[in-house]
C-alpha cells in the first residue's frame, strides 16, 4: 500500500471531495506556523506528494483542535488527514507504542500539548 493509500485508509477521508474553498485554512490557529497550509495539505495528498508532507513542519504544527474538521463544508476534514499523516510518520520512525516515561526524552518545545494528548489517545487506548 502506498503512503497516500495508507493516509486515506487511516483517516477514512476522501480528499477528492475538497472544493478548495479554504475554510480550513481560514479557521486554522496554526496557519502561520505551517509551511504547507491545511487546504494545501489536502492537495498534496491528492497529488501523491507524501515526501513533501513528511519534510514539512505542518504535521507537527497542527494542534488537533478540530476547527477545520468541524467547519469543512465538504466533509473532507483535513485535520483527519494531517492526523493520519502524523500517525504514519510516527510509525515509520518506529515511535509507536509510547509509554509515559519515554515521553520526556521525546519532547521538544515545538510539540504542542494537544498533540501529545492525541498521541496518548491513539497509542494507549
Amino acid at each position, binding site marked *: 500500500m502506498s503512503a497516500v493509500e495508507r493516509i486515506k485508509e487511516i483517516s477514512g477521508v476522501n480528499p477528492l471531495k475538497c472544493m478548495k474553498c*479554504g475554510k480550513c*485554512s*481560514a479557521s486554522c490557529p496554526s496557519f502561520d506556523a505551517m509551511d504547507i497550509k491545511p487546504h494545501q495539505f489536502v492537495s498534496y495528498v491528492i497529488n501523491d506528494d507524501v515526501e513533501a508532507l513528511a519534510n514539512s513542519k505542518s504535521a507537527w504544527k497542527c494542534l488537533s483542535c478540530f476547527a477545520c474538521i468541524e467547519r469543512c*463544508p465538504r466533509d473532507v476534514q483535513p485535520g483527519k488527514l494531517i492526523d493520519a499523516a502524523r500517525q504514519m510518520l510516527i510509525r515509520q520512525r518506529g515511535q509507536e507504542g509510547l509509554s509515559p516515561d519515554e515521553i520526556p526524552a521525546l519532547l521538544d518545545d515545538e510539540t504542542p500539548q494537544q498533540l501529545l494528548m492525541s498521541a496518548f489517545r491513539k497509542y494507549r487506548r
Partner: protein
Amino acid sequence: MRRIGVFVCHCGSNIAATVDVKKVVEMALNEQGVVHAEDYPYMCSEAGQSRIAEAIKEKQLSGIVVCSCSPRMHEATFRKCAETCGLNPYLVEIANIREHCSWIHKDVEEATEKAVILMRAAVAKVHLNAPLQAGESAVTKRALVIGGGIAGIQTAIDIADAGYKVDIVEKTPSIGGRMSQLDKTFPTLDCSACILTPKMVEAASHENITIHTYSEVEKVSGFVGNFTVDIRKKARFVNMDKCTGCGVCQEKCPSKKPLNEFNRGLNTRTAIYTPFAQAIPNVPVIDPQSCIKLNTGKCGVCEKFCQVGAIDYTQKDEIITESYGAIVVATGFDTINLDKYGEYAYNESKDVITSLELERIMNAAGPTKGHLERLSDGKAPKEIVFIQCVGSRCSDQRGKPYCSKICCMYTAKHAMLIRDKYPDTNVTVFYIDVRTPGKNFDEFYRRAVEDYGVNYVKGQVGKVAPQPDGSLLVHGVDLLENKQILKKADMVVLATAIEPNPDVRKIATMLTASIDTNNFLTEAHPKLRPVESPTAGVFLSGVCQGPKDIPETVAQAGAAAVKVIGLLAKDKLKTNPCTAKADELRCNGCSQCANVCPYGAISYEVRQVNDHGIREDRRIAVVNSALCQGCGACTVTCPSGAMDLQGFSNRQIIAEVDAICR
C-alpha cells in the same frame, strides 16, 4: 397461438457494443410462437419502423416484441407503428435491453444472457396480451396555479391571454412572492417593484384570472384533465367587497408587537396589516394570533375607525371546491435556517444579516427606510464583508449540496449599489468561485470589481467573531496570496442558500408529484421535459423546480403555460386502458382495495353471481375506469387475487417470471 415477431435494436453502439444482438435474434427464433426475428441499427428510425410494418403484414404477426430502450422513450412510437398496420397497440411489448442491460453491464457475455432473458419474458407476456381500447375523458378548461410569485403570475397571465380561465392560490395576503421583497434587480439594476407591480396589476385585472390570496390548497383528487381541488380561504376578518384600502385601521391598531414577515422580522407590524404598499389585493388581514379583539373580546379599534364597515370579527375560514384540467406548482423558495452555522454568529449579532435582509434594509419601504445602517446601533457601516456560499455547496449535512445559483449575481449587485450610494464604505467579498454565467452577467460582476472597486478575495471565511466594541472580526483567508486575513467589519452579509418552500412536501404529496432529496420538484425529463412533472397534468414553474433568477423563472413560467394551453386546448384526452378489474367470483368484498386506491376509483355493489351453480348476492368491488390510473396498488393488496390490471394481469406477470426463471 400468437404469431410473434421480435425486433432487436442496436441503438447504434449503445446496445450493440455490449449485447450480442445477433445472438438475441437467434435465441428469439427458438421461442414458442416466434415466427420472425431480426436486428437493425435503429429500430425507431423510419426505416426501422417500416421493417416492423412489413413483417407484420408479410408474416401476419399478431404480437410483437421490440428489444430496445426504455418504454418511456419509444413505447408510443412502436405502438403507433403497429396500429397503422392494423395491429392493436397493446399487442406490442418492449424488452428494455438498454437502460436495464447494456448501459449497466460491461461483460458482453453476461449482458447478452440478460438481454435474451428479458426478450424471453416479453415474448411470454405478449402471448397473454389482450387487445385493449383506449377510452376518452373530457378536459375541464380551467387551470390552477399554486403560488403567486413572479413564476405563478407569469404562468397565469400567459394561460389567461390564450383564452383560458386560471385561478391563482397564494398563501400570503398578497401576490408578488420574493420579488416584491427585492430592492433592485440584476443585471439591469431596475427597481423590483417598478417591474413587478404592473404584472401584479395585469393579473388582478385580467378577465380570465381569479386570485385567491391568503388561501391554501387543502385537497386534490382526480387526474389529468379532471382535477377537483378544495381550497381553504383563510378568514381575513375584513370584507373584501367593502374595504377601500384606505389603511386607517393599520394606523390605529394598538397591537404593534408582531414581527413583520415581509421585512424578514427586522421590524414589527400591527395586528391588522397589508404586507406592503403595492399589495394585491390592497385589503388588509387581521392576524388572529395578535389581534386583541379576537383574543380578549376587548379593543375593536379598527372596526370603529373603518368608514365603510369592512371589519368582520366573525369571519370563518371557508372551503371552496373547484374543478381544473391542469395544475401548475409555483411555490418558490425561502432562505435556509442558519442555526447550524454558529461560526458565522448570525444568531449572536444583529449586524450579521442575510442577503434577503439586506434587500429589505436597502429598500425605501424597509425597516430603515432605505438607509444602510447597522441594526444594533443605527450607525452607518464603513466596512462591509460579504460571505458567499453560506450553506450552499455543502455535503456535510449542515447545508445544501447544490449551488444556489443566484447569490454570486445578487452579491455583485449589493456590492455595487453600496459602493455607488456610499462611496466611503469598503466592501469585501469572500468567495469560493464567482459563478456568473448568463447574458451580460459576467460583465456585471466585472463592473463591481473594475468600476466600483469591490474587493473580491478568494477563500471561504472560517469564523465571524463579535467583538466587545461592537465590531465583527472576520477570520478569512486569501488563497491566492496564501495568507490568513483578520478583518474588522461593521456589518457581515451572508449569501444564504435557498431551499424550496418547506410547504412543497405537502403539495407534492397531494398531487402525487415527485420531489428530489432537496425537496425540489422533479421534472418528467431533466432535458426534454423540464416544465412537466412526471404526474400527468401537473406542471412546474419557477424556483420550486430548481434555483433560478427572475429572467429564467419568467422563461420557464411561459414554457409551463404553453404546456397547460396545449392540454386545455384538447376537448378529449385518451385514457389509459390498462385499468383494474375485479373478478366477481373471487372478490369477497373486503374493501381492502378501496382503502389503498389513491384515486378513489373503487366502489362496491351488491350483485347476483353464479358461483359454480350456486346463485347468491355478493358485495363486489367495481372499478370506475375513468378514475383508475392503473397504478396497481389494489392488485397487490387484494387478498383473494381478484383484482387484475388489464395489460398487467397476474397471469401475465407470472408468465414473465416463469420465463425468466426457465
